[in-house]
């Protein structure tokens, strides 16, 4: 076969590319073990002199990692749970229920994907600040901090995903109507049909959607940075680590930053490697990333 005539060239290219991809991660791990006098000094050395765990201890101590972890976990869980729930509910309605305005609603969902996130950045923040009856606000949303001082602020703008609704709908369309109808004839209401039949049948797509959402939520930086600026108690892992990086003396803090980064990327990398098939299918389905 013609296009297999030069596999060595292909191998060379692909392996070189893979090395370029992996080396930064390796450098991150190596630097996390380097002592204060080793990092950033000339000439550059890839391997640390000794595998010293002191940077990890410093990261846990200086970064208050347990709190950062907790905030990241809570925000990510809120977002993922809410996206799965709302997507499968709305997806089911759009795929399998007949009601006036369905096409309009579906087109609305699709059109929301047209608006880039940065457009909503400022108004989202102000809406959370002026959320009525929260954080000391009155009914008109004045006088207090609104929702910005609570951990839900991290999750609020991401609770519903148009893409999630779209994805679940496309998947649910292929569920045979006969199955649903049989359940209805047996006296099951729509909620039971959704929970007992549709959700189990769409488990693969929900797993994929959950993974995509989880990874995005875990890695989110800009919004979390803003919310943590208003209330440092809800700081997430990426924000906390970047904050440490901003200290004056980079040569001393860089190894600690790297240690924090290793600890914060480990969970997500493990999850990805375990479930990569589902994740990769999701990206192929969406291509959105």
């Amino acid at each position, binding site marked *: 076969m*013609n*296009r297999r*005539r*030069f596999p060595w060239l292909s*191998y060379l*290219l*692909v392996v070189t*590319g*893979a090395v370029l*991809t*992996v080396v*930064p*991660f390796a450098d*991150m791990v190596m*630097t996390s073990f380097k002592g204060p006098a080793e*990092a*950033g000094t*000339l000439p*550059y050395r*890839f391997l640390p002199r000794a595998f010293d765990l002191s940077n990890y201890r410093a990261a846990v101590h200086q970064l208050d990692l347990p709190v950062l972890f907790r905030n990241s976990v809570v925000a990510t869980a809120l977002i993922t749970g809410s996206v799965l729930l*709302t997507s499968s509910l*709305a997806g*089911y*309605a759009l795929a*399998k*229920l*007949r*009601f006036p305005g369905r096409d309009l609603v579906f087109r*609305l969902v*699709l059109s929301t*994907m047209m*608006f*880039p996130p*940065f*457009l*909503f*950045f*400022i*108004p989202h923040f102000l*809406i959370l600040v002026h959320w009525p009856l929260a954080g000391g606000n009155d009914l008109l949303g004045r006088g207090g901090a609104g929702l910005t001082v609570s951990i839900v602020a991290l999750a609020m703008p991401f*609770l*519903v995903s148009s893409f999630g609704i779209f994805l679940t709908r496309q998947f649910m*369309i292929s569920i045979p*109507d006969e199955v649903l*109808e049989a359940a209805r004839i047996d006296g099951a209401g729509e909620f039971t049909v*959704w929970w007992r039949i549709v959700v189990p049948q769409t488990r693969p797509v929900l797993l994929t959607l959950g993974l995509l959402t989880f990874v995005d939520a875990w*890695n989110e*930086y*800009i919004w979390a940075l803003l919310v943590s600026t208003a209330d440092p108690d809800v700081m997430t892992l990426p*924000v906390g680590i*970047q904050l440490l990086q901003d200290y004056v003396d980079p040569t001393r803090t860089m190894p600690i930053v*790297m240690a924090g980064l290793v600890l914060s990327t480990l969970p997500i990398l493990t999850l*990805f490697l375990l479930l*990569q098939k589902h994740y*990769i299918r999701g*990206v*192929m389905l969406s*291509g*959105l*990333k």
Partner: protein
Amino acid sequence: MVNATLTPETTRRAAPGAPATGIHGRDRRGRRQAVVAYLFLAPALLFFAVFLVLPLGFAVLLSTSRWAGFDLGDIQPVGLDNFAALFADGSTFLTPVLTNTLLFALGTVALALAGSVLVATCIDNLRFQGLWRTLYFLPIVTTVVAVGNVWKYMYEPGGLVNGVLNALGFGSVAFLQDPDTALPSVVVVQAWASVGSAILVLTAGLKSIPETYYEAAALDGAGPGTVFLRITLPLLRPSLVFVCVTQFLTGLQSFALIIVMTKGGPGDATEVAALEMYRQAFSYGDWGTASAAAFVLFAVVLTVTLAQLWFFRRRGEDV
């Protein structure tokens, strides 16, 4: 972008309602189903009302107002002043900010596209495709804070990249400190981080090209270059368009990597529109200008996307 490629079956296949159980029964069930459907949709619709429609209106209001940002009663309408200020003489918004934004997006797309086409076509010939794809995918699931800091550190005088340069006998380069190299250096990182998903999309595209085309080409004695140009590339076009459009979109609006790596510096060598918007609002309290900048960037994003779709569609008719 999604509409363009992923909606082959959106509203065509109508979901059948209940089978006939008598006229009255169907009516009642239909109404009940409508109520149930809107209940199911309620959380999403409520969310869109509060976090999409309301913010859009608010953004429009802010972009035509002057406001210190602390008391809703103090919003003063100023018409299009904020937009005028963005393009006034001496304003840095058009150059270098918008030009940087476009260069950043263009550079990222070019690099990521070239890299992903190369790697995707090569992977297609190899064994262990899953392993390669997984490796190339690692940057995608990594937070931008990790990507940015690792590369920032590698670019430093005592970092890996300069270490390799010095070992090969080249002089050091102040990648992020020199304004001539800062933007390209950040572009490389953004492309590095996004090439994995492009490879995935292209791999899917390659898999859908029927083997018979290649067999026919082999019978005609076509060389690998000809096969690539005459068969692979044209048939890969939908995937290429998709990668191109989405990467361009991401490139135009992303600034997290830039905040992490350079904060827009040195000078304004890596200042981009979304970062400028962020700073105007949250550091300088100039919400009006920030909102106006957001709309200008939105207009640019729309124009660029539509232009690409138009261009590719026209080209498509020629082929």
